[in-house]
């Protein structure tokens, strides 16, 4: 968890403590949840083929392509990537492989 939360929602939270109607009080709290566990296909970044064109970055619906301080893409965030494969389709350099999840 990188930010201070107004309300920490974890699997142990009781009905008395949770937010009204499941309201989310902290923008970006998906960071606290691993939502990539139902992925059936997995994108693999082929670093050697990648030209850092960054076309993959804006199409990811889950912000699961991580960018470093130099503005270059790095590894996938597999905790949140759902394996939709949009990045695979958009890559002009075949630098993202798409394989079945183990």
């Amino acid at each position: 968890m990188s930010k201070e939360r107004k309300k920490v929602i974890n699997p142990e939270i009781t009905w008395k403590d949770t937010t009204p109607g499941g309201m989310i009080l902290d923008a970006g709290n998906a960071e606290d949840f691993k939502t990539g566990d139902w992925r059936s296909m997995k994108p693999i970044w082929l670093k050697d083929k990648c030209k850092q064109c960054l076309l993959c970055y804006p199409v990811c619906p889950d912000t699961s392509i991580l960018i470093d301080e130099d503005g270059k893409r790095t590894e996938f965030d597999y905790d949140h990537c759902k394996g939709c494969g949009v990045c695979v389709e958009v890559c002009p350099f075949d630098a993202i492989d798409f394989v079945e999840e183990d």
Partner: protein
Amino acid sequence: MAIRDRLSGNEAVAVAMKQVNPDVVAAFPITPSTEIPQYFSSFVADGKVDTEFVPVESEHSAMSACIGAQAAGARTMTATSANGLALMWEMLYIAASCKLPIALSVVNRALSGPINIHNDHSDSMGARDSGWVQLYGETNQEAYDNLIQAVKIGEHPDVLLPVMNCYDGFITSHAVENIELIEDEKVKAFVGDYKPEHYLNDKENPIAVGPLDLQNHYFEHKRQQAESMMKAKKVILEVAEEFEKLTGRKYGLFEEYKMEDAEVAIVVINSTAGTAKYVVDQLREKGVKAGLIKIRVYRPFPVDEITAALSKCKAIAVMDKADSFNAAGGPLFTDITSALYGRVDGIKVINYIYGLGGRDVRTDDIAFVYDALLEIVKTGEIKSVYNYLGVRE
């Protein structure tokens, strides 16, 4: 000084809405509730309210717009009947689960089919488990008073639930009766400003409403909803007390009419109570210990209070203006008998389904029910529990 006037039920409700001056009204017309948005839109056009009126294309959209507006931080109201309420169904549950205190006037009408525009309770009875507080009113005065109280009940921090203000189509909605209105400024002071703790338009504190809620959290949120409904009972009584101080009109969870020493009683909802009170008076003149209970708060269901009120009766008839098609009894009957079970023993309880599709209910019909109860008291035998009143056999 209160304002004496003569208004139909729908006019009275539209006037209550004008006095509350909600931020948003999103509505679609359907008989017999049509006049509410009709009158209200004229208030909007004439600049008598500041409300954003959204003339939507369906009731599903009406409730969706209300949910969006209320979540954004707006005090929101709407009105509907019968199939309009049915078309809202999906969104009713979402309004309740999002804890949004929308006020909805339901002008009770038979739910199709067969298609029928007249009064029974099959519309709102179907929505009894949607998570909305349900208030019922006998007269135009009660419909007006209940809507004003509905705002304050729903918005109470211990409740935060949407509220239905139900009253009988045509009988109450269109009949013009005398009414005592509260002054505009007193209504505004009574309901106060709507100040939700969290709302979508709060740009300093961005939130998300209604997110995906799976196995790990859904159950906790439903438990939370149930708690709000349990707490609503106390809030309803507190609001009623405050309302009585303002107007002198007393409201409870239900009305007891000549119940102190009643041996036979009927339990009824909405306008039929007026007809039945007349019959009770006639029976009392003959020395019959007859009484009546008129339900005002159906959700939450006042289990303990109603049991206490009925505990000294020998025989009770529960009157349902909606059938459950469960081959066992109407919705109010099953709730009353469940309430009595394990709390009070030995009371004979029967059920009458009556007045479906606007079938007229006369004093003779009600007298027939009291006669049946007196016969049960005399013989100690119930011939039939689940009965139909006024249908051609």
